[in-house]
């Protein structure tokens, strides 16, 4: 049964998928710090308000995974912002997140060299994201 994207239930499922992944722990062993995803509103695609997602990663473990408010999102070590359609492209692996960043389709606030050094971790969590059975806001229009 698909889960509505960007809801708390979906965040829980995503967290569980990361925890269940056999490779994640070793790949992400060096990663420290929280990541927020900011989804810009797109009313035409049933995203009327911005959505803020906070995820805490720490040395191969995962902590708090919550839908949050703007203030909490901005407290994360890394804040990535983009339009809903771009995030969906990333989840579907139609657009690589690094390429989206370089092309300006996603924006990031945070330590860019740290992300580059840990690019395998970034790719891994995106890979897992695509495996969560998801109902996207514009899927049921």
């Amino acid at each position, binding site marked *: 049964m698909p889960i509505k994207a960007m809801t708390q239930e979906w965040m829980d499922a995503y967290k569980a998928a990361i925890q269940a992944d056999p490779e994640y722990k070793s790949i992400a062993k060096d990663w420290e710090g929280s990541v927020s995803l900011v989804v810009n509103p797109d009313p035409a695609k049933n995203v009327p308000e911005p959505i803020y997602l906070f995820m805490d990663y720490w040395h191969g473990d995962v902590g708090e995974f919550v839908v949050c408010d703007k203030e909490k999102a901005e407290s994360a070590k890394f804040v990535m912002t983009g339009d809903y359609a771009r995030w969906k*492209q990333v989840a579907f692996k*139609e*657009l*690589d997140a*690094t*390429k*989206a*960043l*370089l*092309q*300006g*389709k996603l*924006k*990031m606030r945070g330590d*860019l*060299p*740290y992300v*580059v*050094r840990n*690019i*395998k971790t970034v*790719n891994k969590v995106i890979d897992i994201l695509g495996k969560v059975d998801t109902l996207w806001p514009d899927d049921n229009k």
Partner: protein
Amino acid sequence: MAGGYAGKFLRVNLTEGSWGDFTLDDDTLKRFIGGSCLAAKLFLDRYSLDADPLSPENPLMIMTGPMVGSGFPGTSRFSVCARSPQTGIWAESACGGTFGPDLKRTGYDGVVIEGRSQGPVTLTIDDSGVRITDASSLWGRDIYEVTDEIKAHDKSVKVLAIGPAGENLARIAAIGNDKGHFSGRAGLGAVMGSKNLKAVVVRGTSAKAAKADDEGFKLAMKTAMQEIKDSALAEGLHMMGSDANMDLGMVTGDVPVKNWTSGGEFDLASNLSGPTMREKYLTKAHACTNCPIACKRVVKVDDGPYTTEEGPGPEYETCAVFGTMMMNPDLTAVIKANEFCNRYGMDTISCGSAIALAMELYEKGEITKDRLGGLDLSWGNMDAVLKLVRQIAYREGFGDILADGAVHAARRLGGSAMDAVVHVKGLEAPMHDPRGFHGMGLAYMMSNRGACHLQHFVLATEQGMASWPQLFDMKDDYEGTTSEGKAWLVYNSENYGILANSLSICHYVAYAIRPETLRDAFNAITGFGFDFADLLSTGMRDWTLKRGFNNLLGISKKDDILPKRIMTALEEGGAAGSVPDMDLLLREYYALRGLDERGFPKEEVLLKLGLNELKERLYR
């Protein structure tokens, strides 16, 4: 007079010790712009293709473009061009730094150097005129020493110099500008050395090229600065330099490992990466004239066997060729090798590739320790590598065999050597593996100076650093390990990207700004009023002109080929199991480019591009 041009070119004959000015009409400038494109046009019109590249008859051209000196970001560049002593075909090597804008301010758009001086000389061009002076006291000294010596008299001058490698006619010799910027590829330092020309010194303050539309330029400039400020690519380059590619490229299969025989060496990459350099050895970022990105590294190694004083640091290409290619995990050794190549004046890609080849042959037992004069050239032995770098520059011992590059070395060494060289048309490939990015393989095959990542924007478009659907039909994200659709991508990325070396603008700046901004700035400077179609058409003319140049030198379809090693799949890493589909890539590309079965531009293509004289020479 078109905007952006100083209005005249300098022709120097070192045999005669004479010089004079010449001009070009606006129509020629509008069709061939400047930089390497205009150089190719001048070469074809005025010089013999039959001359040995190291003979006095091979002209050495130093050319700027109309955007140089404008103050627009990334326009400090100039191209050095000649027939290559390494490959025998067209050679061009663009360089950033400080030289281009100052040359323009002396009142010259470019310099064509003919002949050969009796003894070592320096060519000086400044506001007071042109001088050829004795350089006997500089001969034999390395590029850092020569630059310091010349600048000791006037630190405001800009210096272009060769080191011992150029003097010794090593066919991989480079030309250095102010220590940290190089025209590296295809042996142009040897051409300069063959002329007994140790240095070109410029200091220009008075001449100023008028812009066609000052207000339009200011607007384009403001837009460009904002786009660069907003660009994550520019931010990454500022923070990590071009070596930001090391970690990312190892994941995608871009980074060659162990002389192109391996992949997936993530720890090795991490030791050599841009973030590591930043954390441990970077003292500051350095910018070419008028560049807000400042991607250049200034580094210092305080301790250990490879202690290095503060100075220019290595680019990604150098970190790969003296790092992953040699199975060397020590970034300090790469920094030292970079310093040696800078001082001796050698292209790091060619030098490192030749040494990596020798390491492989040493492992196979095809080169013995005796033949190496006692050097143990095991993978990762950087003490031996550094000794060999010096030997190459001075053509001593085994270094003499490697001094002309990996292809010449393989021919002399025999055995399995040629199968272990990754080159196209005699030029060693830069550090981007076509098995990870098939479009780059096609770009290597079709680049007019041999395997090259800088005659086009394929690196940006195929790897996703930039997406320009407004320019041509392209996707935001291409899978690297497929050949489908790549001919179209490469063809268009060439037509746009090749302009970088005629407009004389840095690739990185062009990646970071929108094509509209570059077009608007170019038009505001020149007044040419180009639309995107005009720009792409100019790129087509540029590519076709140089292809014709090479065709006249014997290049044909047989030379458009990837080497055996690249057509052998890797077992590990991001490119594992993948090789480019050469037949598909070439078939589609040939159709797009209008090449006939011989690999010559078809007559109708030449006529459409206004290359009538080239058509007459190719089809006479």
